[in-house]
């Protein structure tokens, strides 16, 4: 990898860099080794603790947890996206008494912790936890979607809207037919990135006692005994990270494809100092 920040390393620099790398790897390996050793001292890696994964019931519980997590995320995403579109259209409306209140609502929703909104719905409307989680996620993420799409519309060349109005479309038609499709396409990477955030935030359901993956794991540890908390927690964390990781990869894939196909590319195409290779 060449970089504009430093010269192509000569023999001396290569030696220093190699030395640095070796020291770094040894340090990290040492830390990890220490962590594993300390945990092993406490018997974390004894076979019987991990034997729970031989039980089909444990996997069934984990499976239920994953389904609960994914279904909350899916329902929330499916509702939040169109709502975000609507909010965006209201937010950029040319009529002040529509635009200004929408702006206030959006600022309010974006300034609120998602947990608080979930908790609010749970207590004030006395709903079940699933509805509370989904409502909290929808309220927050539709506001964010609206802002992302608005940024997309603002990044379009002015001529798009002018051309739309010139051929006789109304303001609303121009937004809907000309600008929105382009804006959504441009902002695809940000939208998918927000989807990852939404997926991650389902774990807040743990706090409002929605039985998603983490809560299931906790319940399981309560039943089986505390010594199993560790193994199941690790498995749950790994599953969560794996799911989020694959959605993130999807975002990168879309970004790559988008920058080839979309008219004008996705919103950024400057020469970069660091290559966004693994991103």
């Amino acid at each position, binding site marked *: 990898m060449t*970089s*504009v*920040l*430093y*010269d192509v*390393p000569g023999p001396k*620099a290569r030696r220093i*860099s190699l030395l*640095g*790398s*070796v*020291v*770094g*790897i040894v340090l*990290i390996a040492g830390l990890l080794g*220490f*962590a594993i050793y*300390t*945990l092993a001292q*406490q018997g*974390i890696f004894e076979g019987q603790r991990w034997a729970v994964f031989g039980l089909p019931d444990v996997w069934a519980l984990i499976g239920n947890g994953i389904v609960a997590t994914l279904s909350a995320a899916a329902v929330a995403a499916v509702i939040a996206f169109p709502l975000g579109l609507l909010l965006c259209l209201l937010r950029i409306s040319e009529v002040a008494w529509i635009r200004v209140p929408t702006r206030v609502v959006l*600022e*309010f929703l*974006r*300034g*609120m*912790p*998602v*947990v*608080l909104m979930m*908790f*609010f719905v749970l*207590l*004030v409307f006395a709903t079940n936890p699933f509805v509370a989680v989904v409502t909290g996620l929808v309220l927050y993420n539709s506001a964010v979607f609206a802002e992302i799409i608005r940024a997309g519309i603002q990044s379009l060349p002015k001529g798009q809207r002018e051309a739309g109005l010139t051929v006789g479309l109304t303001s609303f038609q121009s937004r809907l037919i000309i600008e929105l499709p382009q804006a959504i396409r441009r902002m695809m990477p940000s939208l998918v990135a927000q989807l*990852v955030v939404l997926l*991650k*935030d*389902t*774990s*807040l359901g*743990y*706090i409002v006692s929605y039985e998603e993956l*983490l809560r299931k794991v906790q319940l399981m540890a309560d039943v089986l005994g505390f010594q199993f*908390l*560790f193994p199941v*927690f690790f498995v*749950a*964390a790994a599953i*969560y*990270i794996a799911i*989020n*990781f694959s959605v*993130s990869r999807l975002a990168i894939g879309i970004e790559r494809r988008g920058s080839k196909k979309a008219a004008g590319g996705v919103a950024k195409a*400057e*020469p*970069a*100092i*660091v290559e*966004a290779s*693994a991103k």
Partner: protein
Amino acid sequence: MDVIIENLPLYWEGFLRTLFLSVVSGVIALAVGTLLAAARVSPIAALRGFSMAYVEVVRNTPLTIAFFFSAIVLPRLGVTFQQFEVAAIIALSAYTAAFVAEAVRSGVNSVPLGQAEAARSIGMKFSQVLSLIVLPQAVRSVVPPLINIMIALVKNSSVAGAFFVLELFGYGRQLANANGDQVLMVLIGVAFFYLLITVPLGIVASTVERKVAIAR
């Protein structure tokens, strides 16, 4: 309304603790995040790899899991603490640092290539190029995203309330349980105090954004 006025001292205490958690974690996250970003562009391969792996893993980890980790796993590793605040600060700053690193990195990318080339052509070393030329310009353009990350941090600190730290959300939960009939007012009070931090920060972010946009 009465329930808010009666419990104003509790709200205030929670507000201060939320502020405390956010400021301390924010400062740590800014420092660690900038270091991670510097490591990400450094000539040493192991540093680059570490920084990349850290950012990738943490960004894909739900905050709740980060809290679980610092509250349950760290004590097992010998990192013990008297108060849960410390666990909360560790979780929040480790989580936020990854986002800071990403923001700073994208700021480094927004500095025109010629800047680094010019610096190198007059004989600067990597550390000089980065600290004297590139980072000062990069930080300038990432102030608005960094403020947005700090807003997210303030909101994220509410998760600490579920892990035995009595901050704004933690007190809100307590008050809501104690005043079952006035839950609405109790939670509106909590919301008000959060907005007291997040809305002004948001306004600062958009003002700075406008200023920077004009300057460029």
